[in-house]
């Protein structure tokens, strides 16, 4: 059981990084990115190719993944960021699907549908199975913590204030002389790079990646995490990601005791259960479990000297 908890927490940690990155893009800046899984996948494959094909160590793989995620982010952003709301959503969704098709069809690079086997572990080799599992959990938790601290600092800084202004009405910051497009581009690229880093961690944890690991349902889970946790609140995203993973995995145990239903019905019941909990959350806490804190008007802030 303890080994299983470690496994679930490791996966949850990866989802925390993804949710934080999406929260920066959507929760703070209002960019609707449905292509989460595309960047996640690019990170995973880039890291895998760097370590297995090119023989770099894990840290090298992680760097290559972040770089690949960032560069792809720039490309997608330059092509699509001028699009507003719903249209950006469609383009990013299309990007994720395109990425998956590339993973599936470029066998020489990605191993195609057979999958890509990653032998490089993020921790030193030679440890026992249990110790390795704990060490990987520690690494993923550290990565999640770093992402959380950096992004929360960003959100609380004046930079975060501009992002919120862009989200509410981009006309206002641009009248104040802010280049809205550049801010959006930066946010999109930073988010994409973080998603790719999550992909790298995930790839070296699961050790076999196939194009099926990067289908849209993964993105839906991340979106659920951000919305349930409370869009715009970094701590909310952490909580949301943990909650969604616990719900998704924990429901396996809830239904285990029911013997009246056959396996087929039980597996359907799990999804009904997950859906119900989500609907209830949204119904009774529409702003999420931890809503974004409303800042007081700046009356209490002492006036700065001109």
């Amino acid at each position: 059981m303890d080994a299983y908890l470690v496994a679930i927490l490791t996966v949850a940690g990866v989802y925390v990084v993804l949710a934080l990155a999406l929260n920066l893009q959507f929760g703070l800046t209002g960019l609707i990115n449905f292509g989460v899984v595309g960047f996640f996948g690019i990170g995973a494959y880039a890291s895998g190719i760097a370590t297995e094909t090119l023989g770099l160590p894990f840290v090298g793989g992680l760097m290559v993944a972040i770089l690949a995620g960032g560069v792809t982010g720039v490309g997608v952003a330059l092509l699509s960021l001028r699009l507003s709301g719903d249209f950006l959503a469609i383009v990013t969704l299309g990007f994720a699907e395109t990425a998956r098709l590339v993973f599936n069809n470029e066998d020489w690079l990605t191993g195609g549908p057979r999958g890509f086997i990653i032998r490089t572990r993020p921790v030193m080799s030679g440890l026992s199975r249990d110790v390795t599992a704990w060490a990987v959990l520690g690494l993923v938790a550290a990565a999640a913590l770093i992402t959380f601290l950096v992004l929360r600092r960003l959100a609380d800084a004046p930079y975060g204030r501009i992002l919120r202004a862009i989200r509410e009405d981009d006309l206002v910051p641009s009248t104040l002389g802010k280049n809205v497009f550049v801010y959006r581009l930066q946010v999109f690229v930073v988010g994409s790079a973080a998603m790719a880093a999550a992909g790298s961690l995930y790839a070296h944890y699961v050790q076999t990646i196939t194009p099926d690991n990067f289908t849209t349902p993964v993105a839906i889970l991340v979106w659920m995490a951000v919305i349930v946790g409370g869009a715009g609140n970094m701590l909310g995203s952490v909580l949301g990601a943990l909650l969604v993973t616990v719900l998704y995995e924990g429901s396996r145990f809830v239904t285990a005791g029911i013997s009246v239903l056959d396996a087929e019905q039980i597996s359907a019941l799990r999804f009904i259960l997950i859906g119900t909990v989500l609907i209830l959350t949204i119904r009774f806490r529409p702003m999420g479990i931890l809503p974004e804190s409303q800042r007081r008007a700046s009356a209490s802030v002492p006036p700065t000297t001109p």
Partner: protein
Amino acid sequence: MDLSRRLFISGATLTLAAPALLRHGLAQSAPIKIGSLTPLSGGGGPYGPEKAKAHRAVVDLVNTAGGVLGRKVELIADNTETNPEVAVRAARKMIDADRVCAIAGTWASSETLAIMPLCQDANVVQVYTGSSDYLPNGDRKGLCFNLQPLNQAWCVALADLAAKRGFLEVAFAGPKNDFAASMGESFASALRKVGGKIVGEPFYYNPNQVSYRAEAERLIATRAPAIFIAGYVTDFTAVYRELVRGGYKGKVFTLSFAVGPDFKKVVGSAADGILHGSPVPPVGKDAYDVYLNLVCLKPNGQVQAPYGCAAYDEMNLLLLAIEGAKSTEGPRIAEYIRRIANGPGERVTTFADGAKLISTGKGINYDGASSSVEFLPNGMLKSRDFALYEIQKGEDTLILTTTSIVD
């Protein structure tokens, strides 16, 4: 009461150690846990439920008769959704939380391959049905057993049929997945052996597309007199429709699971002339009838539940091996599966008969519902019946049944 540091530390240590101590003490009488991991939805959706039902039926039967090694068998069932990622998460729960000693039932080769590293690490036995030629590669510890022949065997039968009908130039198409990729390679080499060849490049399309017009046009443009399409029912139906609409006049070869009742209902008379084949259970054999009766199906001289009967064998083999090995350790179970499947010993077809003989110390040779269940050293099946059909007037007409033997 003062809580001294010493008391706190010893108390905390004891509390933390309690689960481990309890687990050790309870292990002797605890139920034997086995995972039933089947595709209850997705591409394997038509076949997963019959596998899950067969597992459940065998376990219920064995439990009412007193269990295995005097312990109850507990089946931990889960759904792979025919998706390797989901399969891995389900398998991780089975291995780490439930501590199963074996996982039976994976169907798509991609699922089986995806959970293999986990199972190998934890010494968990895998018994499955799959046909990708890459399946034996990941099994470093000899813990895997496959109740389905590999693609090589299917392709030999299909290529023979093609040559017999005079089709020596055949185009190949299939969905872009592991199964079809390995099918394409095997079919090409089988066809070369009978003097034929593949027309053009093997053509892989993306599954789950809305339309296959462009793919069909490309296939027609090869002007091949025959096309072999190694698809599942969902994509094959769409591709075949486009081929018919595009006016393709050649012969179409495919696999039986792509042209089940659903396909025939949708396509109607346009299905006539399709040649197809697949591994089949030995219709009329006593062990197969016992299985059908157990899951409340009537033997009717036709192929029914082609994967359910293999699942029945999966579970019987596992339980007999645990009974024989008197252990739930993976390597010991695997050793006994080999011994029980290949003999030497008296022929048995059910767990009850086998357990009786094992208790008297005699050797047994399990003869299954899906095949005679003899394994090669790499855990793959030695031989299995294979049937070829032609669709005539909306019905499958049997052309021939062969037994494919792998050397």
